[in-house]
């Protein structure tokens, strides 16, 4: 009996090792590209479509790992991912300055929206972004309005911090005030919370539209115009000098994203929501379509370029040019 | 030669100390005493389940692990194994190298347990469990059988069934020790009585002598029923 148990235990361990080596071998034979991405982009479903196309057309398995921008950058630093899809310029710049990221390309943009309850207690409907933020803070201090922040240093949160600054507030100060709430959660959770509390919040269009269409939230878009609200998505490839062995595949993916990928992007979500979730950025940059070109340049460029020279790495070999 | 010989055996629990010398012969010996007197402790020492100071000779040899195979004990609180009543018996028999179902059923019949043979032992009543525990001990061949309050959970009818079994066992030449606080049982059943009080052996003698002519005041009080607490 004791012997049988020992044999069983050994068999289990042998099988486990077998499974491990089988899986490792299988992965070696597959072409796998790992890309860490911001959640708001992932949750639109756009990347599911991209992964499907890559598998079908090129036999490449693109593994998208959804995280906040900060965590996605961390992934790349730890050698987990071969490229990142993000939307927080300051962090991207830092990532490249530290030598981790190269060949940044802006591939899409859309607009953040300030959403809130229909009755709009702070009367921000139609205001400019800066005025809207001021009015919300004012109404908040009078006890008439609530603001919900994600407080998770995600791209959306970083944008929010910048908007408060533009309106003359210090995020670190006002986050202590009573009308200012933080969820520390994703966009969906934050929208649900804001809806429950009849509060204002900043959202990306994609998440807002999906929750709105599903009837999960009772919030309206109150401010959606204004260059400050532009949301610029870029791809950064991890530097091969920092150990990225998949650089070649990552560059081919980047190339696809700024060429064929632009058409996929253009059509995505149009049937679902009656409006596109993203706008292709490459043609705007190429043809300098105004006013978007200036807006992207202002909010998405680093030192006057989407990717300053010192952060470029053998991109011409892949036929990629930078603006 | 005595089957069991205890010389200056001491078990010290701090609050309570058992300390005695005694010899036990074939036949039925009752360890009589009120609750807390040390009966269970004594039986456990004899069953080699408890460490102790002093000397213990089993049929002339210094008692050790190997003698455990010559002794069995039925606990005061019956313990049963998982599985059916029959499984319980078969396990005991298998350790004895003799797992015959007939033998098991014969014993169950004797103890009025045949109709619950297929029941899960854990689901038995207290009295049924106690009889099962006794049946399990009777199923195996031993020199010495120790019973700790064997009829405490039983009705009169089942108690007399158990007592009959114990008597039969004695007739076949075995050594039986039963711990009991029941003076009537001791009187009915035993050849010799050892009266225990506070861990001390107060008086030890033929049953008749202990009940009719106790030498010690404590014994006298106990066997007359005055001390029945």
């Amino acid at each position, binding site marked *: 009996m004791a012997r049988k148990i020992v044999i069983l235990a050994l068999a289990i361990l042998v099988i486990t090792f077998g499974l491990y080596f089988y899986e490792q071998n299988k992965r070696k034979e597959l072409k796998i590209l790992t890309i860490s991405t911001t959640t708001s982009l992932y949750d639109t479903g756009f990347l599911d479509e991209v992964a*499907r196309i890559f598998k079908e057309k090129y036999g490449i*398995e693109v593994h998208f790992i959804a995280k906040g921008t900060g965590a996605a950058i961390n992934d790349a630093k730890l050698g987990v991912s071969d490229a990142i899809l993000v939307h927080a310029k300051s962090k991207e710049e830092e990532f490249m300055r530290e030598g981790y990221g190269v060949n940044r390309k802006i591939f899409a943009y859309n607009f953040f929206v300030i959403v809130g309850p229909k009755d709009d207690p702070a009367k921000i409907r139609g205001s400019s972004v800066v005025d809207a933020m001021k009015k919300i803070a004012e109404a908040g201090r009078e006890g008439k309005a609530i603001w919900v922040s994600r407080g998770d240093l995600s791209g959306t949160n970083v944008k929010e911090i910048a908007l408060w600054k533009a309106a003359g507030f210090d995020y670190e100060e006002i986050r202590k005030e009573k009308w200012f709430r933080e969820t520390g959660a994703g966009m969906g959770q934050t929208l649900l919370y804001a809806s429950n509390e009849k509060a204002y919040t900043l959202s990306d269009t994609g998440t807002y539209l999906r929750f709105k269409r599903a009837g999960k939230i009772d919030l309206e878009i109150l401010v959606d115009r204004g260059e400050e609200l532009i949301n610029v998505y870029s791809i950064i490839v991890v530097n091969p000098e920092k150990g990225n062995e998949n650089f070649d595949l990552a560059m081919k993916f980047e190339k696809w994203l700024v060429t064929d990928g632009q058409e996929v992007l253009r059509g995505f979500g149009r049937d679902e929501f009656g409006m596109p979730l993203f706008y292709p950025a490459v043609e705007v940059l190429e043809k300098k379509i105004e006013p978007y070109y200036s807006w992207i340049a202002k909010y998405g460029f680093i030192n006057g370029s989407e990717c300053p020279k010192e952060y470029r790495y053998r991109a011409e070999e892949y036929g990629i040019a930078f603006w | 030669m005595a089957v069991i010989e205890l010389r200056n055996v001491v078990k010290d629990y701090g609050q309570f100390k058992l300390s005695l010398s005694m010899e036990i012969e074939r036949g039925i010996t009752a360890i009589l005493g009120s609750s807390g007197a040390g009966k269970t402790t004594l039986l456990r020492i004899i069953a080699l389940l408890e460490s102790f100071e002093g000397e213990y000779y089993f049929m002339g040899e210094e008692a050790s692990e190997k003698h455990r195979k010559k002794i069995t004990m039925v606990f005061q609180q019956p313990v049963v194994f998982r599985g059916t009543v029959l499984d319980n018996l078969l396990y005991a028999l298998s350790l004895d190298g003799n797992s015959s179902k007939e033998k098991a059923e014969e014993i169950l019949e004797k103890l009025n347990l045949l109709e619950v043979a297929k029941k899960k032992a854990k689901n038995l009543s207290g009295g049924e469990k106690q009889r099962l525990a006794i049946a399990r001990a009777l199923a195996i061949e031993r020199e010495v059988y120790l019973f700790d309050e064997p009829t405490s959970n039983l009705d009169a009818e089942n108690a007399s069934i158990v007592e009959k079994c114990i008597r039969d066992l004695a007739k076949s030449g075995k050594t039986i020790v039963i711990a009991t606080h029941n003076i009537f049982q001791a009187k009915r059943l035993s050849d010799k009585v050892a009266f225990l009080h506070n861990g001390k052996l107060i008086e030890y003698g033929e049953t008749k002598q202990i009940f009719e002519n106790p030498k010690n005041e404590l014994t006298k009080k106990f066997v007359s029923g005055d001390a029945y607490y």
Partner: protein
Amino acid sequence: MVSLFGDLDWGIVAEITLRSLKVSGLAAILASTIGIPVGVLLSLYNFTGREFLKSIFNTLLGIPTVVMGLFLYLLLAPKGPFGFLGLLYTEMGISLGQMLLVLPIVVSITATSIEQVSEEIYELALTLGASRAQAVVKVISEALPGIVLSSIAAFNRAVAELGIALMIGGNVFVYGGLANTRVLTTAIQMHVARGEIDVAIVLGLILLSVVFAISWIMNLVKKWL
């Protein structure tokens, strides 16, 4: 074609469910292979450091899965100390992570169920003529229902946990992909985040059914034991 917006693709649902069963099943089997002997040792044998070991396992019992997930993530990342194993974002990675998570469950339920029976069963077996080794075997076989329970509890915790599956698995899904790691819990979390609550509910019900079915089967096994 994958339906991106909530319409259920039952092929995908089946794939994810099977993966959950496979990954967490392996985790529970491995945890049992290691945890049951450890539980037996901890409950039956006295050795120095036993109490210390026991308290470690008891502490690990309550460890939040996200903490465990984060910890393992840092260890398994390519530039981490165990990066060379290539376990991050793999099924085996999830299995091993969940194995570590549920190991304390197996150890402590096994140890407790043995301790509950050990004294009296051990002595009873001795009085019936068992050797010390035979008595130990009897104690273990008496504790078998509890030991089986520890394995089910381990599986149920593994299959229902999110932290490790997400941090170590990454919720990777490619339609037709051969290296996917999406399991029920990560899929549920994702669909909730995407506002596809109805899909999440369906997956949640499947998860519940799995847990109930396994518990029910194991209960039958326990009765039969």
